[in-house]
Structures are given as C-alpha cells and as structure tokens.
C-alpha cells in the first residue's frame, strides 16, 4: 500500500487537442489534500478528458501535473496508480461473476500465482475492520445491489492504497438514500485526512451537500469555481450552461380523460426466472403522465417488456382502450400506441440501416402515408415518400445527422433518441410508453426531449414514464408510482408528494 495519508493534485495550464478540436483549453485546477472537490460541466465540456489526462489515459498536449506539489509525469494508468491516484468509473469495473473477495484480490498488482484463500480472507477481514463500511465478501458481484457495488468499488480503491480518488458520477445508479450514505462515507474519509476526492457530478444537490469546493468546465475551459458554501445552485448552473437558453417544459394544460392503458392482475417471471413481477392494477388516463420510479432491477424493465409484448405473462391482462393488447404491430397502429424503450439504438432501431429507413419503420408498408390507420399495405416501397418523411421529421425534431442516408448508429446518443421520438410521435398518439428517455444525454438534449413528452401529454396522450432518474419523474409526472421488488409499492399524486417518503419506498424499507 502506498500510504495512508491523502494526497493533493494540481493541474497547470493543461491543454489537450484532438486534431483541430480543443477538448481541454488551459485548465488549471487545484485539489487540496483531504478535500472533497466537485467537477461540474455539461456532456462534452471536457470533464472526462481532464480526468483521463490526470489518470494517464491521454497525454496532455501541453501543461503539467503536480502530485503533492511535486511535478509528476504520468504516462499511463499504471503510473497513476503507483502515485496513489485511482478512479471509480461511471460503469462498474467489477467483474460480475466473480465474488467480492475475488474482485479485490485480482485487482491487486501483486496477486500471488497460487491464492491461499484462507490467508487472503483473513487479510481482507482485517482491512474491512479499519473501514467505516463493509460488504459481503462471498457474494458474486452480480447479486449485489447498485449501492453495494459502488461501495465495493470504493473499497477496492482504498484496498489498493489509492489516496486520491476520481469519482465519475458515482451516484447515477443509486437511490437518494444510498447516494447520501456513499457520499457521506467519502466525506468522512476526506475529513479524516485519509483520502482526497475529485467527483464528477451533474447533481447540484449532492455538490452542495457534500463537496467542499467546486470547479466548473464549459467547452473545455475552466470557467469558474470556488468554495461550495459561497455559491448558489443558480451560480453554478449559470457557469455550467453559459448564455444558452434552454427549452423549458411546456406548462401543463388539458383535462385528464378516460383510462387508456389498464393492467389487471399481471404476473410474469423476471429475468432471473426466480422471482415474479406482480402488478395488481395500473391505469393511465388520457392527458396524464404516470411516472414509475424505482431503483434499477426492481422489475421496471420486465414491466416494459410485458407492455411491449416481449415477455409472456402467466396471469392477468394488458388492455388499451378496453381491448386486450398483445403488442403486435397492427394493434399498436390501430390503438395508436407508441414506445420509446431505453437504449433506443439497440431496442428500437436497426443500427446499420439509414436514418430515413429507421424513421419509416412505422409507416413504410402503408399505402396511405398520411393516414397511419389505413389498413391497406403495399408491396413495393415508396422510397421518395420515405425520404420526404425523413426530411420532415429530421427538421421538425432537430435531429443532427450528416445525411438522412447515414446509418443511424453513426448518430450521437441524443440524436438517436430524438430520431426515435420523432418516429414515435410523428402521428396521433393515444398512449406513449417510455423508459429512461434521457439516460446519458446532455443538458440541452434532455430539456428538449422532456418538452416533447410534455407536449404529447398536453395534446391528450396517456404517457407512462418508467425512469430511474428521480428528477425526471418529478419534473414530468402527474402521478408517481414506486416499483420495488416487482410490485407497485407506493402511489401518490405529484401535488402531495414527499421526496423523503418516496425515497424510503424506493429503498424498499418503508
């Protein structure tokens, strides 16, 4: 182990160019030993370029780094690790089928060729006793909850003797209470002088609650920062976004109408096949957004699959406008049901087909393009009409693409999302079912997509929104449901919602 004292890191005039593109422009940031420093910025602001330069994944074009006030040249991640620098990534780097103990032991530089598990276990236990929190050592990592995995990631870094940690959006998959617990632990470790932490985050609440100092990046440049106690959320947002104006979600309008979607006594097996998803009753009416909150892996994706007809149910029925819904293309068309599944590139697109072809998936085989409800189908495609449709939709939904003939997989995540939304919203919609529509998108794309969803609601569509992002649920929903362990555990109208109560239900111990 490298030591038990926190180390400080400073970048001096760090610049990184990729060809003509300047990803990082003269950035100087000082992270004092034992501090909890937050790094804010939109997607593409250069946060990850900066930390990758610090960790030795990239070599800066110019500028230098100081570790504990001494100049340090870090040529690769191994040298960063040797200097005591570590990083916890947004996606887990734990190996899913290995146990926690195996993960910790194999991560070491000096893993012995033959592992004496008895001895290693004693050493791990001794190490865990010095930590403020523990994990189950013998469980395979894929059985741990997201919060436990993130704790294990943190433990791993400390076990490896890293004393300067970069956390890349560490709470994006955690419940509010798990996030508070984790960040509280990190803060305690920094206060004790055992650790310095640089956290990339989007969540102002976490920054103000836990961090000591903040630095803000915009378009590769360091645009501001300071002590968290001296900055308001508005100050930080202004630094982050700059002079851009954002699309605000349109105000709510329209009346709640008749029930469109109704699930009665649904029961289906979950992915592991060991548990079941049971939804006694779920109704969504025209002109309302029903948000389903919950921590990932509590049956939301299985519910989505039941709705799209991908997962067989053992009991119960899904009906749309009092008709039993089986998820066929014909039914979706007749009943005006549209879907926006999560990761749309995998789940709602054919990646190598062109943008125009992907946009025509709903309508390419109809004789009458203007009328999606026309029953007559065609044998020969009308490519000119498909192109016209694509040009219109690309324009209306501001999809950024080199050409409508480019493969859709070449678009950025936000633009794929916009394209799919364009296809799904291009006609009258009575029921819109959405899962995690804004996962991994930047600030402005998020605002745009949420405004579209809101507009569909105001036009009288029934919207079911399944999301792991609580802010999104709170912003869009008229009614909020919590899914926990395959059941609807809690329901409340947005007007009387209490976030604390919601969090307790999400965590499953209400």
């Amino acid at each position, binding site marked *: 182990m490298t030591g038990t004292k926190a180390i400080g890191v400073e970048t001096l005039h760090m610049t990184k160019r990729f060809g003509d593109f300047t990803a990082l422009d003269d950035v100087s940031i000082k992270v004092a030993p034992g501090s909890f420093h937050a790094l804010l910025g939109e997607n593409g602001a250069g946060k990850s370029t900066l930390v990758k330069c610090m960790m030795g994944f990239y070599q800066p074009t110019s500028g230098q780094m100081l570790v504990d006030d001494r100049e340090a040249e870090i040529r690769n*991640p*191994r040298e960063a690790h040797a200097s005591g620098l570590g990083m916890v*990534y947004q*996606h887990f*780097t*734990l*190996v*899913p*089928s*290995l146990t926690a103990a*195996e993960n910790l*032991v*194999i*991560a070491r530089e000096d*893993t*012995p*060729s*033959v*592992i004496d*598990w008895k001895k290693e276990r004693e050493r791990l236990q001794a190490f865990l006793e010095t930590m403020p929190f523990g994990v189950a050592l013998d469980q395979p990592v894929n059985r741990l909850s997201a919060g436990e995995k993130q704790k294990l990631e943190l433990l791993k870094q400390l076990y490896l003797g890293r004393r300067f940690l970069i956390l890349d959006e560490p709470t994006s998959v955690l419940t509010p209470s798990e996030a508070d617990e984790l960040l509280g632990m990190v803060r305690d470790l920094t206060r004790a002088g055992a650790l310095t932490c640089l956290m990339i985050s989007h969540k102002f609440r976490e920054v103000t609650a836990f961090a000591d100092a903040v630095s803000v990046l915009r378009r590769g440049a360091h645009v501001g920062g300071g002590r968290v106690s001296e900055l308001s959320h508005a100050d930080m947002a202004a630094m982050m976004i700059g002079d851009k104006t954002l699309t605000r979600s349109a105000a709510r309008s329209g009346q709640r109408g008749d029930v469109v979607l109704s699930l009665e006594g649904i029961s289906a*097996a979950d*992915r*592991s*096949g060991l548990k079941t998803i049971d939804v006694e009753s779920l109704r969504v009416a025209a002109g309302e957004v029903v948000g389903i909150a919950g921590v990932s892996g509590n049956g939301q994706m299985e519910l989505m699959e039941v709705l799209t007809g991908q*997962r*067989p149910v053992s009991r119960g029925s899904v009906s749309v406008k009092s008709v039993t819904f089986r998820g066929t293309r014909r039914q979706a068309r007749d009943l005006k049901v549209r879907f926006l599944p999560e990761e749309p590139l995998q789940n709602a697109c054919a990646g190598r087909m062109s943008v125009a072809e992907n946009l025509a998936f709903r309508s390419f085989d109809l004789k009458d393009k203007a009328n999606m409800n026309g029953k007559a189908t065609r044998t020969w495609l009308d490519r000119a009409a498909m192109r016209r449709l694509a040009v219109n939709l690309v324009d209306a939904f501001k999809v950024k693409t080199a050409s409508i003939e480019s493969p859709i997989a070449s678009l950025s995540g936000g633009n794929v999302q916009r394209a799919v939304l364009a296809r799904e919203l291009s006609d009258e919609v009575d029921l819109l079912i959405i899962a995690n529509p804004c996962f991994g998108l930047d600030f402005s794309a998020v605002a745009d997509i949420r405004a579209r969803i809101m507009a569909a609601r105001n036009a009288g569509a029934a919207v079911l929104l399944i999301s792991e992002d609580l802010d999104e649920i709170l912003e869009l929903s008229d009614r909020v449901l919590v899914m926990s362990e395959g059941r609807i555990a809690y329901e409340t109208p947005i007007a009387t919602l209490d976030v604390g109560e919601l969090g307790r239900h999400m965590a499953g111990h209400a």
Partner: protein
Amino acid sequence: MGEGDLGLWTVLLAMIGGAIRVSTPFIFVSLGECLTERSGRINLGLEGTLVFGAMSGYAVAYETSSAWAGVLAAALAGTVFGLFHGWVCKLPRVNDIAIGIALMLLGMGLAFFFGKPYIQPVAPDLPAIPLGFWSSSPQVEAALRVNVLFVLGIALAFFIAWLFRSTRIGLVIRVVGDSSDAARAMGISVDRVRLLATAAGGALAGIGGAYLSLYYPGSWNEGISSGQGLMAVALVIFARWNPVNCIWAALLFGAAGALGPALQSIGISKGYYLSYAAPYVLTLILLIATSSTTRAVRCAPGELSITK
C-alpha cells in the same frame, strides 16, 4: 438368469465400457473448449484440430514407435491451430465463429492430405489399465479396460476447476471472459490471455484426437471423428462452463454413443442408424430442454459472442 436378463446386462456393461472409451475425447475437447470459452472466445475449429491431432498423433506414433510421442505431437499441432485462431481473432473486425469454421475445414483438409500414407500402417496403441482384472467374465474385463488418458482427463478437469478458483491465471481468464473492460482497466492484455487460452484449448483438442487414432477406434482414417469437436461446444453449454460438469456431460454423451454398438453386439440391428444417432439426438434434446425463451444462458461468460 434368463436370456433377456443376459442381453440387458450385456448392453449395460457395453454402455459403461463404451461411456469410458467414447467419453475420453469428449472430456479433452470439452475441457479445451471450456478453457477457451471461459476466456470469452469460442473456437468452433476444434473439430479440425481434433482430426489433425488424430492424424499427426498417429503419424508420429508410427514413425517413432512411441504412442506418447504421438500424443505430444498431437498436442503441439493443436497448440499451433489454437495460436493461429487466437492470432487471427486479434485482428480488427474478425469474427471468432467464422474463423473457427474456416479452421475446422482447413484442419480436416490438411489432415486428409498429409494423412493419406498413414491409413495402412499400424501404429502402437496407448496403454490401458485393466481395472476389470478381478472378474472372470471377459465382458466385464473388456468394459473396465480404462485408458490412461481417461484418468488424466478426469484429473485435468479437477485441476482446471482448481485453476479457475485459486490461481491468478484462473482468475485472470475468468475476468477476461466476463468483462474485457474490467480486464483492460486492470491492465490485463485481453488478446494475449485469449490467445493463450485458445492455444491451450487447441492442445487439449489435439490430445483428444490422438486418443481417437491411438486407442479407440485405434487407427487413422478419414472418418475417424464423428463430430466430437463440434458436439463439445454443446457439451460445454450443457456443463454450464464448469470443468467438473464436463466429465459428467462427456460420460453421458459417451454412453449414448456406445448405445449403437452395444445393441449390435447382442444382435439387435434394427434401427441401426437410429441408435448410432443417439448422441446427436441427445444433444438436441438437452439443448432444447435447458433453453429458455425469456432469459439468456445462465453462468455463461459475459464476453462470449454467442450469448452477447
């Protein structure tokens, strides 16, 4: 003891003996495939490796008059095939399944080409341990003549299981097979681990081939393999990527393979081709029975291209 009883006993004994004899190449090939697949790559070329191993093992055993030199040569040939597969798969935009099929055909073609002069000569056999020495019945004795390679194969299965559990090499193979991102983050060279795992898998398949030509059936000809190399892939899935389970799966397949000859030995020749097809029917039944429409294969290494 009635006549029917005797027939039943003969069939059962023949099947046990057959299971032991026929399963040995299955054990080796499936352990090799298991090792390769646990590293996240699938090598369908093992059928070609097996046939080439059978040829080269037989040829070297004949030339040197030593069966063990033959086994060594087969293992070396298998290693070369594995290294080639691993090296080609390292290149960008190469699909391991397509390369495997190409190598399967190449291996068989090369084996037939170089093996022509060795169809007639007789090479020395591998030694067997007469575990049936206590019995006066010649059938029991024949059934319990166990080849050294069978014992080695079982020991190897337990060794590989131990390797996966308690050694750094084993853990590294599992890490690479489960998440190449995690492996890269640890500074493990994913391609090199897979290259070596594929080479080791090839060596084991080569030994499996040597067993075919040097012990059972014990001669070299072009029809020596009946798809053991391909069925090993199904077998590994059935064994849930667990080396010790590979033994049981191989024994089961061996017993099914012995059904045809066993029935013939007591004079039942009706449906001859059907009973010979038993292992293939078993493959189908097992794969269908253990399949599911709603979830991915359990315990499968995360990086395997067929389960991704």
